[in-house]
């Protein structure tokens, strides 16, 4: 499926009552979900933590694809890692370090996936399962709430 077809699909969905659509064609699975009911508006991250690294979110609330707020449900065997606390999400342990994990990485249960800063404390968030990272659902420096999905892991 190419980009044009995807755009057409999105256009089509806009004019219908369908809220969710899943298509599988020649091994490629696409799931679209309409926005709405998005009540969490991320604020700009605070500057105390990695001032150099903060890439101010270039995408505003309205432009952000709905898939990020309401991530496509993982297939039954996939595991969603959710945030256990409220805070600011960081993908690396310090601004000059690379991301702790990336899409395609294989992780072990208990391995640190990301950092969530809450009340000036850096909390390491560990993986609940061993497997392969298939999705990273939050951008670096974004605020997250309790229960918000962060990663999708495919167990191995």
């Amino acid at each position, binding site marked *: 499926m190419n980009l044009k077809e995807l755009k057409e699909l999105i256009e089509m969905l806009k004019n219908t009552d369908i809220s969710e659509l899943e298509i599988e064609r020649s091994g490629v699975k696409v799931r679209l979900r309409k926005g709405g009911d998005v*009540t*969490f*508006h*991320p*604020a*700009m*991250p*605070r500057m105390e933590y990695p001032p150099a690294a903060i890439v101010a979110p270039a995408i505003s609330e309205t432009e952000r694809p709905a898939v990020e707020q309401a991530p496509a449900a993982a297939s039954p065997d996939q595991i969603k890692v959710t945030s256990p*606390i*409220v*805070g*600011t999400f960081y993908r690396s342990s310090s601004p000059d370090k690379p991301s702790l994990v990336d899409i395609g990485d294989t992780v072990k249960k208990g391995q640190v996936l990301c950092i969530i800063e*809450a*009340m000036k404390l850096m909390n390491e968030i560990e993986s609940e399962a061993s497997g392969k990272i298939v999705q990273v659902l939050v951008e670096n420096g974004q*605020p997250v*709430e*309790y*229960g*918000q999905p962060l990663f999708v892991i495919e167990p191995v």
Partner: protein
Amino acid sequence: MFKKILIANRGEIALRIIRACKEMGIKTVAVHSTADAHALHVRFADQSVCIGPPKSSYSYLNVPSIISAAEITDAEAIHPGYGFLAENASFAEVCNSAGIKFIGPSPESIKLMGDKAKARETAEKAGVPILPGSAGVITEESDAVALARELGFPVIIKAVAGGGGKGMRVVMEETEFASAFVMAQSEALASFGNADVYVEKYITQPRHIEIQIIADEKGNIVSLGERECSIQRRHQKLIEEAPSAIVDAPLRKKMGDMAVALAKAVKYRNAGTIEFLMDVDSSFYFMEMNTRVQVEHPVTEMVTGVDIVKEQIRVAAGKTLSFTQDQIVVRGHSIECRVNAECPEKFTPSPGTITAFNPPGGPGVRVDTAAYTQYVIPPYYDSMIAKLIVHADTREEAIMRMNRALDEFIIEGVKTTIPMHKKILADEDFKQGNISTKFMERYHSPSK
């Protein structure tokens, strides 16, 4: 003025605060547990943050989560409402150290008034009458008898570590005293591992009368008159009214002046309530001070025209009180009925889905609620679903209006206390204003 306030609460009080903020042009942040994702306070706030699972200790009492939510949303102040963290001194302290304004008194005031013995001592020093009794623990039976004789019977023996009626003995006559004293001591030891008791004068038919005060950060303190909350069951208020049927203008001034004196003595700021027990001869005694907005604040708002929540926000932002004592006039009469989702006879909670919800309206009627049709009352929190408040020229008219409003209030799907309220309002003693905190006992088993 603040640009954005986080509301660390749920239900009707969270909505009440959001309403005040909206009318003041202040942005709001709601926090909620996963059980409250569809609650109205979440819907009507400008932003919301999920702070934890349903259990309060992991969500609405979770200090790091709430502070973190304020930080990621850039909220400048936190309004705690009532219950949850409202009277938690360490929460107020954490707010201060995080540079977030706690909308309420200082942590020191909360701590001082939260300690019953210290609060009593402070009240006494400020010239507020306290219930006559032993200043502290009394161990010798002979001392206790002598004191009881001095106080005059009836007296009450209470466990220092007490609570829930355990280790508590009312003694009507001197002949019963000796055995009651020993029993109270052993009961206290069995229940709390501490045999310490004290003796106090016992009021047979007390009325619960409380004074609302509000103070700014410049030392101005104003009393907003009294509320009568004598209709209660197991220390849970059911009906509140302002003014009290037995408080006249001179008594109101006397009580108000004492409440202000106590507030001044502890350098109190923001809204607070001083609770008194009143005897049949109108003598009154300090009970405790609540360092937060009260559930029943609307009856005071109705008769004084003061918006207490807005004023709380204003004074927290450093503004001077928008009125002086001589501008406060009590007009008409207001009554509030707490509508709880519970079985009206047994008072057992009745959580579930509200299938139909029609709040009353019309002249002089106010409903503070966060419920709606199809709202699911979660089993994790308190059972209050609405506060029905009326205002009229006289107490008699207010009762008629409340009856009318209760008839219009349709709630289906869960059991509510509406039938119980109708019964109370029809009671001759209630109508005459002959009430005390013992009033509800007539609706319970006579053996108790």
